[in-house]
């Protein structure tokens, strides 16, 4: 498939935003059970605002993918059958809940305002945050299922696609949260950083699994099934037109084999070992520079990872476009 910049930015940016929100809520729930000290309302409010900003940036990027962005509202219509439609609904829901979460923190409201006395401090933010967590995981699921649900894109049609989108989003979000905590000068740097390293290592395992799986795919379609002729030797002599068409532009990545292989190594290095080392340095050496580097490297690596994710998928329609003529 041809990797579209808009979709690369959409999926990576909302991944960071979702991961950041999960980081914030994790810290808050640890605090709720007394494992972590309390944070200022401003910390949560600013963090939630940043998470929303990432989602908004992703949404803006996605509009560049559409031929008719002014009709985008129509995309919510077919949520019963289309994962894309579900994503279009899940994205603003997650965004809205993150925003409310930050706002409730900022205002310092709790359920007592609604006349419900629970006696738990911060019960309202915990409740809104929990809903936000559900929406966030729902959004991960919808985004990844857009790709995983197309069964003949065999590189994508696997639960690993959903797992990778989720774990990579969480890893990048926690890496960003570590940097954010360092900028806010809180004691959460170690907490976020530790989880960021764990999530990144977990993502390494799941991403490598999908690379391994994809290296051994047996394609179900062949030129034989494409034109329905039983013969072991079939070659295309003409695709029916001399220059390109939508079918030759949209479904081939068009990069050289060498570059394709480079990108794989670029992302394998930038997404996993580099941030882990920099996170370790940043935590132990209390260095904001290292943490900034960790996030920058991981995010850049994720752009390459997403490019590779799209480029690696082989669409069966390509069987019809092998030779110009």
């Amino acid at each position, binding site marked *: *498939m041809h990797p579209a910049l808009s979709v690369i930015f959409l999926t990576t940016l909302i991944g960071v935003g979702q991961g950041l929100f999960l980081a914030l809520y994790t810290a808050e729930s640890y605090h709720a059970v007394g494992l972590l000290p309390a944070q200022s309302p401003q910390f949560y409010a600013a963090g939630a605002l940043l998470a929303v900003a990432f989602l908004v940036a992703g949404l803006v990027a996605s509009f560049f*993918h*559409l*031929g*008719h*962005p002014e*009709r*985008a509202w*129509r*995309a*919510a*219509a*077919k949520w019963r*059958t*289309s*994962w*894309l*439609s579900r994503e*279009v609904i899940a994205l603003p829901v997650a965004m809205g809940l993150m925003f409310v979460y930050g706002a409730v923190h900022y205002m310092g409201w709790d359920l007592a305002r609604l006349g419900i006395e629970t006696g738990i401090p911060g019960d309202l933010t915990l409740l809104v945050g929990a809903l936000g967590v559900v929406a966030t995981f729902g959004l991960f699921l919808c985004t990844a299922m*857009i790709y995983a*649900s*197309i*069964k*003949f*894109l065999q590189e994508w049609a696997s639960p690993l696609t959903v797992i990778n989108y989720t774990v990579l989003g969480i890893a990048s979000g926690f890496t960003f949260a570590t940097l954010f905590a360092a900028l806010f000068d809180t004691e959460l740097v170690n907490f976020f950083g530790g989880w960021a390293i764990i999530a990144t290592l977990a993502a390494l395992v799941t991403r490598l699994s999908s690379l391994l799986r994809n290296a051994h795919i047996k394609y*179900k*379609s062949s*030129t034989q*099934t*494409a*034109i*329905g*002729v039983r*013969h072991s*030797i*079939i*070659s*295309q*002599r*003409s*695709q*029916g*037109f*001399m*220059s*390109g*068409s*939508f*079918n030759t532009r*949209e*479904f081939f990545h068009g990069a050289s084999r060498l570059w394709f292989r480079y990108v794989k190594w670029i992302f394998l290095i930038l997404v996993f070992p580099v941030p882990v080392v920099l996170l370790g340095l940043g935590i132990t050496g209390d260095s904001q520079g290292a943490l900034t580097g960790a996030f920058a490297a991981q995010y850049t690596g994720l752009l390459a990872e997403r490019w590779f994710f799209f480029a690696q998928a082989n*669409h*069966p*329609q*390509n069987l*019809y*476009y092998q030779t110009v*003529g």
Partner: protein
Amino acid sequence: MTQLALVIDLNVCVGCHACVTSCKEWNTSGSAGYLSDDRPYGEDPTGCFFNRVQTFEVGEYPRTETVHFPKSCLHCEDPPCVPVCPTGASYKRPEDGIVLVDYDKCIGCKYCSWACPYGVRELDEHQKVMKKCTLCVDRIYDTGLPEDERKPACVLACPTSARLFGDVHDSDSGVSVAIREEGGYALMPEWGTRPANHYLPRRKTHISIHRDELDRYDNPLKKEGELPKPDISEPSLDDVTSW
């Protein structure tokens, strides 16, 4: 239930592209607007088409065979392109099974083209909506046309009648009989899309001649030449008299 479809006879198609040009001509002049082209006379022409004719070579020289292969939307009975469309712009008409795109609803997200294994949907790069074969829905029901012209433009254009059009759910229709009796098959059956369009395979006519057919048992002396021509008054017998 009606399911309109094309049946394409690969045994007859000569790869002339008449269906491609007449499809483009009809559909670029239709009520749904033009099919855009870029640089049609330039160096790198590109454009939106509903139908393409491709050519494949089967076998290895010198035992090769050329297969011309026209390709357009197959109007799948279980179309994977329809449920993925977030807006409902892509839909399958219940009344005749034609898969259509509502150009006024399409947001140009291209997701349906990813979900079609056959690569027959093409985005119109200027109108920014997805387009594909409509089975000439704007002419097959046009009562202003004489009845034998209420067929898709490609079918009318084909000089060798390689394209048949009809209802594949009606067992007695020409297309159903052709599929049934001439080995019609569907493309990429592995994805369960159940294409309504079918293809008829290349067929060769073989005769087998046995040795005894080369020896004329009624000419045991192997003498060739005019048969004896008895007089008209003689009794007549097949193979003996010449009338």
